[in-house]
């Protein structure tokens, strides 16, 4: 500010000021966690541990990519956890039913995957249509479907557990446990979903419309954007993302029950918010969500590796980080 300041100093400061700190906060949080983790335990930075963390973050991560679209458009989807459980249960029952009918096990798994993807699209579309055509708040609709899906999977499982036929499980297993070029399959899928999600959100008309609607839906409508269609599509994308997560989840345990996917909706929303997306919509980015999802599973990992804090406090630490992230967002907006 003072007149005696040397020009080079100012340009250095300007360059610092030019950095989008606001967007980088989640990344800085991630770096901090990694530093803490590597100080706590020598095996933290080994490829095995890193891939382990990434694989575990894949389910929530993939679902939160979908949630990013929903939340940026100004909506919310509370049903993702129960939807995942229901889709998993339905998929297993469907595949078990086909078993022994003359179709090769690989074919059965492929049919199962197809069924899950289509069902995810339909379930998402049902949420979306009820919200936009039915003009009911997203919170209410998805709170309702949360209950419905949860109850349906419990009903399908008859209160117990639905288990995948043993022979099919062997065929399907590599989808979760396999590697490609040394990297676990779920990590590849997570990366692909995130990349495609980012491309759609940041580089297509649809993505721009999603942000415009979240920013001000009236402005979007007056700009000849078909707001209801775009909104519905965000829930369809969310449903598809849940389905992809289920495709990876079923081979992990080979079973589903009434307690599958419990609280996934909160973790997904948390990942999106930690990643810098505004809960009221309008702005946000997919890579932030990816960082958020990885952070959530890193917290668990770090707590596992240390004895200083009980791993049972995982939820408490996550909660503090979510509140802290939103607090930082507020502070930056100068309120």
């Amino acid at each position, binding site marked *: 500010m003072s007149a005696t300041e040397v020009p080079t100093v100012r340009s250095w400061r300007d360059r610092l000021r030019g950095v989008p700190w606001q967007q980088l906060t989640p990344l800085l949080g991630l770096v901090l966690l990694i530093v803490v983790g590597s100080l706590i335990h020598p095996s933290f930075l080994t490829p095995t541990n890193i891939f382990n963390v990434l694989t575990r973050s894949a389910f929530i991560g993939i679902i939160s990519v979908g949630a990013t679209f929903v939340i940026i458009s100004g909506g919310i989807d509370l049903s993702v956890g129960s939807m995942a459980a229901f889709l998993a249960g339905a998929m297993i029952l469907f595949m078990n039913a086909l078993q022994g009918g003359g179709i090769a096990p690989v074919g059965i798994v492929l049919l199962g995957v197809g069924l899950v993807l289509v069902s995810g699209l339909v379930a998402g579309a049902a949420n979306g249509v009820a919200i936009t055509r039915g003009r009911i708040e997203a919170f209410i609709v998805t709170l309702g479907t949360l209950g419905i899906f949860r109850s349906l999977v419990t009903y399908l499982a008859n209160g117990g557990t639905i288990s995948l036929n043993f022979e099919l499980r062997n065929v399907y297993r590599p989808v979760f446990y396999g590697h490609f070029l040394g990297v676990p399959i779920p990590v590849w899928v997570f990366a692909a979903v995130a990349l495609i999600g980012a491309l759609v959100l940041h*580089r297509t*008309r649809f993505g721009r419309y999603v942000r*415009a609607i979240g*920013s001000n839906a*009236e*402005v979007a409508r*007056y*700009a*000849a954007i078909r707001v209801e269609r775009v909104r519905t599509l965000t829930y369809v994308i969310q449903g598809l993302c849940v389905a992809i997560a289920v495709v990876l989840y079923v081979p992990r345990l080979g079973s589903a029950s009434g307690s599958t996917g419990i609280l996934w909706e909160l973790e997904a929303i948390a990942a999106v918010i930690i990643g810098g997306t505004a809960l009221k919509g309008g702005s946000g980015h997919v890579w932030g969500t990816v960082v958020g999802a990885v952070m959530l599973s890193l917290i668990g990992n770090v707590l596992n590796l240390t004895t200083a804090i009980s791993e049972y406090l995982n939820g408490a630490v996550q909660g503090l980080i979510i509140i802290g992230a939103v607090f930082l967002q507020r502070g930056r907006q100068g309120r």
Partner: protein
Amino acid sequence: MAAQEVLSGARLSKSFGPIEVVHAVDVDVRPGEVHALVGENGAGKSTLMKMLSGYLAPSSGELRMDGRPVAFRDSNEAEAAGIVLIHQELNLVPHLTVEENIFLGREPHRFGIVDQRATRRATRELLDALKTDVPATRQVRELSVSQAQMVEIAKAVSREVRVLCMDEPTDVLTGRETAVLFDLVRRLVADGVAILYVSHKLEEVKAIADRVTILRDGTKIGTYDVSELTPVEMARRMVGRDLADMYPVKRAPAEDASLALEIEDLSVPGLVTGASLSVRRGEVLGVAGLIGAGRTELFEGVLGLRPATGSVRKDGRLVDWRHPADAKRDKVAYLTEDRKGKGLLLNDPLRENVTLQALELFAKPFVDLRAEQAALENAVDEFDVRVADVGVAAKALSGGNQQKVVLAKMMLTDPDVVILDEPTRGIDVGTKRQIYFYVAELLARGVAVVLISSELPEVLGLSHRVVVMQRGVVTGTLAGDDLDEETIMAYATGLRNDSHVAEWETGGAHVGH
């Protein structure tokens, strides 16, 4: 001379960071006068008013009250001294009653309990003294804007106001409400209150003010007795050049110009009844009427923004627009009257705002950011958007520049019928003139223009024909010699009515309402 001034500022300056928005302005207000501050958007009149009323501390210069130097730490101190600013966005609590609002924070009380009787009595005395019929026990959210404004004034008067500062008070008022406000202002002046009055509307300044201070680019051009200047002379001093050519030369549309848009028997339930009108290529059809006459609603119905019945033809072909996207495909565009609520994504960059309505031009299938940037720079050029850095968010622009961005955004869809709804509301004279000349350019390109406006000079200055609406009904279509303010007002207020729509269909305009 100095002794009679209640409040004065000497060489007041205000800077925000490196930018000086008010530069060494001398101004004073005397008891019993209305002193108007006028200037284009960004001329510094609101900033000056905020310095005088304690909302902003001057960067340099001196404030004096009754001849003694004063410094207000905040607006509360200024109010305690009798200086009250009434904001454009009124500052009332919607869910409290009129009397609760007036005495908010200093309720008459006995033994620690609010004395409702005393409150009511004091409120009634106040409102009676102001000769307004605002119901004291009604919640503020149920009041009209003008009534709410009366409450603000009552609140100010109850604090023994000596200087009342009003920022664009008539922007949201109808003609009749403005007259009521002016009566009130005159009564306050007669009681010795000094009034500082910021306005865009020079005709009003002429009508109500005693003296006027004209600002341009943060400096004072001069303080004049209002009787010395005509509104045109004020405008000329505001913009620093002659405004005799405020409106472009009117050229009649070509003899064989085809009908671009025909609306027949259009109704919007509860708001518009059986409206019919048409506009030709190269023609401006003015749509006049009082606020609430259903003008905006009529065209929102046409464009599929609200449910409507009736028939609409574009270039002779019957169309059925269920959504603005349908109208866009048929090259019809609408410029909203609500720039901030429906026209701009205020927090988003200009680039995304400009291309929003025609994004398909830039997405093949991925949005080409460079082409978008080029389109923005083009628009900044073509529409003369004045902004230091095109990377800013839309909210950083002044009203006039925002309006240019909204215009540019609409024009990217390449429409051949444009419906402009209050296109110059709340923007300065210079920008208004630019918009008028842009309309002339559109006409030369064969575009048909519908101009919805509450400013009669603008309607008369641009329109070839004018339809007038009253209570949801088109009461007249005027052209040629009939185009004058008195005739339009006669149709707008219902004194004259050529409508074939029967009274009983209009929802009982005269029947026991």
